[in-house]
């Protein structure tokens, strides 16, 4: 599904990723761990097409397409989803209308009619109940005044509504209390499928205890210095990166 080859990425002339290569097959769950500043978020944002991250060289292929030739909109419509570590606040735009708009953008791309208001409301109620999101949150402005947990759940809700092929989660577990982490992890587990791949960027073992990854990669200085199965995450949690 995803092939990253010799990728070099800079942010404001600081080189962050150094000849990074990674291959992810359909249905696999990969976890990326590493100390602060090792390039975990950089790979997440580069994959989503954040213009603040400059690709100096290398290639990324996503389902056979050159990802670097695609705008962020196109990447999303083709099935790539980034759950933000710090979801953006959009004052003046209600969450419900925003969620409906993003759904309809994808439906339009798939040649479907826009979702009707009643059907959308029903769907939103079901998904919100499952994620234990208070329904009145949707009449508030997008992420504005949301608690840390609400913001992260809102990211998972968007992920669920858009039904992506490749999910990249940038520290979705940060800011979640124990109960919220379990609800969120359950929702993510529900989304695991043989047709979908997940990349989980995290500092901690706790999320990976709920969502068992097939592979764990340790980042340092913008490179993968070690890869292994889920036992690698336990070892890092116990011994640290040193």
């Amino acid at each position, binding site marked *: 599904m995803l092939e990253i080859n010799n990728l070099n990425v800079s942010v404001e002339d600081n080189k962050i990723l150094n000849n990074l290569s990674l291959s992810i097959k359909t249905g696999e769950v990969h976890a990326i761990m590493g100390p602060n500043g090792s390039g975990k978020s950089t790979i997440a944002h580069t994959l989503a097409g954040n213009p603040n991250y400059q690709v100096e060289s290398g290639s990324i292929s996503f389902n056979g397409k050159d990802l670097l030739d695609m*705008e*962020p909109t196109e990447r999303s419509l083709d099935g790539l989803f980034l759950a933000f570590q710090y979801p*953006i606040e959009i004052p*003046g*735009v209600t969450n419900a209308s925003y969620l409906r708009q993003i759904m309809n953008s*994808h439906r339009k791309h798939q040649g479907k009619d826009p979702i009707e208001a009643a059907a959308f409301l029903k769907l939103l109620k079901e998904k919100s109940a499952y994620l234990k999101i208070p329904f009145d949150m949707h009449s508030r402005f997008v992420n504005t005044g949301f608690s840390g947990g609400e913001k992260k759940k809102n990211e998972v809700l968007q992920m669920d509504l858009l039904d992506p092929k490749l999910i990249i989660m940038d520290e979705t577990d940060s800011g979640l209390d124990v109960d919220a982490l379990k609800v969120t992890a359950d929702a993510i587990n529900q989304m695991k499928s043989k047709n979908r791949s997940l990349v989980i960027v995290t500092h901690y073992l706790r999320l990976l205890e709920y969502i068992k990854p097939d592979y764990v990669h340790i980042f340092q200085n913008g490179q993968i210095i070690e890869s292994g199965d889920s036992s690698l995450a336990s070892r890092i949690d116990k011994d640290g990166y040193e």
Partner: protein
Amino acid sequence: MSLEIPVWPQELIKMVMNKDQCSIRLDGVTPVIENFSNFISISSAEDFIKSNILNIEVSESENIQRVNLILEDQSKNPINFEINLKLNECAKLEFLDESIYSIDSNIKLLTTLHKNSCFELYKLNSYKSENTNMFFHDCSLLENSSFKDYSFSNGSKENFSKTVINLNDINSKYLGSGVSINDSTNSNTEVEIRHNTKMASSDCYFKTVAKGSSKVNFDGTIFVDNHCSKTISNQVSKGLLIGKESKINLVPKLEIYNDDVECSHGAASGQPDKNTLFYLTSRGISKEDAEQIYVEGFLSEFFETIENNLMAEKAKNFINLNT
């Protein structure tokens, strides 16, 4: 036995439906004034043609009275007239102008609000980029009167709007909200709020979006005279630059000659936040739609200040059509 359903004369139905309303239709040649309200007195069309001045007087009523200004076929003459508006004690008036101005215009409104009167002015106007359009409003507020002033426009070649608010008596209140959405048009807005009495309050919000090669100026003055203690006055102006060649100039001015006041002002302008636009596009929304969502979010702060649901809906539609 069959019941005969009475057929009401159309004119009567119209009068009942519009019983608190007065409409002024202008086509540049012959004005048509239809007044169905017992509480609004207005110049005749003949007097208006002679003087170019329309006198409107509103008296106390249980229901809010309404005046609609409707500009129709404007192919002939520029629009140039004056309205003298007087709200008597305890009078309530809603004045709506949602016309599309397709020629030059110069409209002057002189308003006096007597004790305990309430006035709401809604101007939702679209102009053409080749025209010159001017609007002057001088409003005097007496004891315990209030004025809610909502203005939405899209600019023109030369679009000039000046509002002077005279808070002349205690507990008079002014709430002004202006939105100017410009697409390679120009807009000059001046608001001068004069606190000439103690214990009066004013709030003034102005937001603008400048696209293409638009030029927008906002000049907001709060004047508080030396004897005007317990004044409350706030002013906020914000601008969003969308076009690479667009310019926004926000000039807040405070002239305060009394220490016992609560006054504030703030002004900020800039381009849309790139991180927000990326967030939206990363969800599959096109760049153009992301920009539109951003602009609508920026402007929607005003909807919350409009208590009248119908007018809030009209304001939303205006913004949707012009962004």
